């Protein structure tokens, strides 16, 4: 068998194989993910999370078999999850399928046909999509086929085939739609304008996918789907088109929903045709455009006003950080992730209790939501600031380090207050605009500001660096455990604090006490940070813990890691 596979692979042209491997390793946008990202590791972690979700869903269906009426609800959930994952993949692999300047310059002078490059790139993207589809649905797809087959093998097989066809079709639809949009923009717009549009469209797509996932109502009963009030939602939501397609293929679609399945077929055909045409035209036309593009675009117009924001060092750190956030795709995407969560919380809060507030009471949903928003805004910003932008260029900060580290930390503190606490407070003000009594809203704002300051000091406890300048050890970002653990703890804390605050808001004495305690906490942490800063050093490299392997072959024998000393970032 291995020989057969090896022989089959050998039949594929060598240039294609080489390019496919290269593009697969680059399919994840390194700019969006990390400066020196470990793509195979990332893919492994990504697949791990999806497999876990699939297993949980399968176990749920196995141990708690859903009643027949719940099938649509599960299918809607599976399709929503799949479309979210594909949407996130399309954001992370944003430009990967299109020719870029690097490809043109590196491959243009080699005897490689553009169609080989195109096929290798499409195959690499398809590989990642296939990985996502398979890992997210392998267990649940199998178990659901058994459960929904209700003992009939033929019915199970039909559901299995319909399910996988629909999953592939829905994924291709969304990924193809993003490709078609990008391709049309690349063909119509001048390259410089396209690059700007592409950056904005990437963020917009990210926000759209997250917002739709969190905010789209889940309609699963026949009555809900037939309600005329939901007609517009059904007509515009691909999730329901593909739900209808799945049931059409499975033979369980009522006649009144046939128009939805029709939409899925038409949408899929249009998107595939559009994406294919756009890709081919891009390789024919924009590859040349990329080469002919001038190396240097003369000074861009626009506003170059840059007032001082405090002392010279603080101004330098703030502007450097703001520009890094605005201009680096990687940092923009990561920040957009945190802010899309903030947006989702804010919108769901706005839609629920705040839209029709109860007079004379501050809803607990408002308090919980705003605590969550403040937490995510501050710690999300801290996480973004920990990602470096250009390690090679950091020498200039070392050469010009003419002031004590505490001055640099003060600059970072200002950044966290300006871009973390302030926007969260603004969102809170907007959400609480219609709430009464206003005195309680104002008291909550003061409390939230103090909480923001407290969080900023916590964020600074181990952040002895200039934002965006320190190397990053990817192993520390253990997404499966740290992220979900943090979400759980933060949610629990927010609910506890919000419920307590709701009680004390009616009692000015207790409220003042709570504010004083928080102010004292923030002040104490500020003093601790100031004290530590006097002895701290600015650092530009994350130092991995040293590992000493003791084999115990003989008494006193010790093996030490080979390589440079403890200051080296690469020592593991």
């Amino acid at each position, binding site marked *: 068998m291995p020989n057969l596979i090896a022989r089959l692979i050998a039949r594929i042209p060598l240039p294609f194989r080489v390019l496919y491997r290269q593009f697969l390793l680059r399919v994840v946008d390194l700019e969006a993910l990390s400066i020196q990202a470990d793509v195979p590791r990332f893919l492994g972690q990504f697949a791990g999370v999806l497999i876990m979700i699939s297993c949980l869903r399968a176990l749920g269906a196995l141990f708690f078999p859903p009643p027949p009426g719940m099938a649509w609800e599960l299918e809607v959930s599976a399709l929503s999850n799949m479309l979210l994952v594909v949407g996130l993949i399309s954001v992370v692999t944003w430009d990967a399928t299109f020719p870029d300047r690097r490809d043109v310059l590196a491959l243009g002078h080699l005897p490689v046909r553009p169609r080989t490059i195109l096929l290798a790139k499409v195959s690499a993207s398809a590989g990642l999509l296939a990985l996502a589809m398979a890992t997210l649905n392998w267990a649940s797809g199998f178990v659901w086929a058994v459960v929904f087959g209700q003992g009939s093998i033929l019915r199970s097989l039909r559901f299995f085939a319909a399910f996988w066809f629909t999953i592939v079709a829905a994924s291709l639809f969304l990924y193809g739609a993003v490709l078609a949009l990008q391709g049309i923009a690349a063909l119509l717009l001048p390259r410089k304008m396209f690059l700007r549009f592409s950056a904005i469209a990437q963020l917009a797509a990210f926000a759209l996918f997250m917002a739709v996932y969190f905010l789209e109502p889940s309609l699963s009963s026949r009555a809900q789907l037939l309600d005329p009030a939901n007609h517009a939602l059904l007509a515009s939501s691909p999730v329901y088109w593909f739900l209808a397609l799945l049931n059409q293929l499975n033979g369980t679609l009522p006649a009144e929903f046939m128009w939805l399945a029709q939409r899925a077929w038409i949408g899929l055909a249009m998107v595939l045709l559009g994406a294919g045409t756009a890709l081919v035209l891009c390789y024919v036309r924009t590859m040349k455009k990329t080469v002919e593009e001038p190396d*240097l675009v003369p000074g861009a117009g626009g506003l170059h006003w*840059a007032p*001082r924001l405090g002392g010279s060092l603080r101004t*330098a750190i703030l*502007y450097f950080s703001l520009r890094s956030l605005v*201009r680096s795709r990687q940092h923009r995407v990561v920040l957009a992730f945190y802010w899309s969560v903030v947006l989702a919380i804010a919108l769901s809060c706005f839609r629920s209790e705040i839209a029709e507030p109860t007079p004379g009471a501050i809803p607990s949903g408002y308090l919980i939501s705003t605590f969550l928003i403040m937490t995510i805004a501050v710690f999300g910003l801290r996480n973004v600031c920990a990602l470096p932008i*250009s390690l090679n*260029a950091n020498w200039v900060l070392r*050469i010009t380090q003419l002031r004590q580290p505490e001055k640099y930390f003060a600059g970072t503190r200002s950044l966290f207050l300006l871009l973390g606490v302030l926007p969260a407070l603004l969102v809170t003000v907007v959400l609480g605009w219609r709430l009464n009594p206003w005195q309680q809203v104002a008291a909550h704002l003061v409390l939230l500001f103090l909480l923001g300051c407290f969080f900023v000091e916590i964020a600074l406890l181990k952040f002895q660096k200039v934002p965006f300048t320190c190397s990053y050890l990817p192993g520390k970002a253990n997404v499966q455990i740290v992220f979900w653990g943090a979400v759980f703890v933060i949610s629990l804390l927010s609910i506890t604090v919000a419920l307590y605050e709701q009680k004390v808001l009616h009692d000015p004495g207790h409220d003042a006490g709570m504010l004083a305690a928080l102010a004292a906490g923030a002040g104490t942490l500020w003093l601790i940070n100031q004290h530590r800063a006097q002895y701290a050093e600015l650092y530009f490299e994350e130092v991995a813990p040293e590992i000493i392997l003791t084999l115990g072959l003989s008494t006193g024998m010790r093996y030490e890691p080979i390589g440079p000393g403890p200051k080296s970032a690469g020592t593991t």
Partner: protein
Amino acid sequence: MLELHRVSKHYASIPAVDDVSFCARRGEVTGYLGPNGSGKSTTMKMITGLIERTAGHINFNGKPIQDDLIAYKRRLGYVPEEPNLYNHLSALEYLTMVAQLRDLPARESSRRIDGLLRLFALHGDRHASISGYSKGMRQKVLLIAALLHNPDLILLDEPFSGLDVASALVLRSLIQELAARGKVVLFSSHELDTVERVCSRVVILHRGKIVADDSIERLRSLMELPTLEAIFSQLAVEQDSASMAREIADLIDA
């Protein structure tokens, strides 16, 4: 005066710079030469304080630089070998940031940046992103950043890299002018012709050790060789370049 006394740098017990001692004096341009991998840039980085030395002392104006590193950095201008800049900034933003990090007065630094950008012919592109700059333009940004604060000690590691002929001629004269105004200039380059014209004396490094430290005139007369290139070839080039070129061509032909 910049003095290096028995300075060494070892990477995992492999010596990159081995027991190096020399002086660079005020009013002189000292050339620091050596083949690739001989330890020139490592020495430069030790002088800037970017990397720690394994042994030895570095003094500036008689004081060890570690005694007051911040005061020393205030007087230091450095052009690194690689033009590593923050590509997401424009030249004006980058230079303004350097001026702010050096705590230069805003109005004065703005005037200097503007003037230097004009003189280095970068003013028209000052708002364009550095990512679009050519190598020569990046080199000019590095030069401006190094000179912005009027330093007393100037370290130039391959400063001519990527510069066009006109800019290189200006820079050559500028280096001499700066030395004539009392600056200490340490200048590393592979362009021996330029070194011969610009430098008063040269230090030649080979495999981390100094093999020559004298004025070019004295080296010429001592070694009875006509040019710096001939001196350098004799001291630091191990292989016969013509026979090596023949070997390469033979390998391609085979």
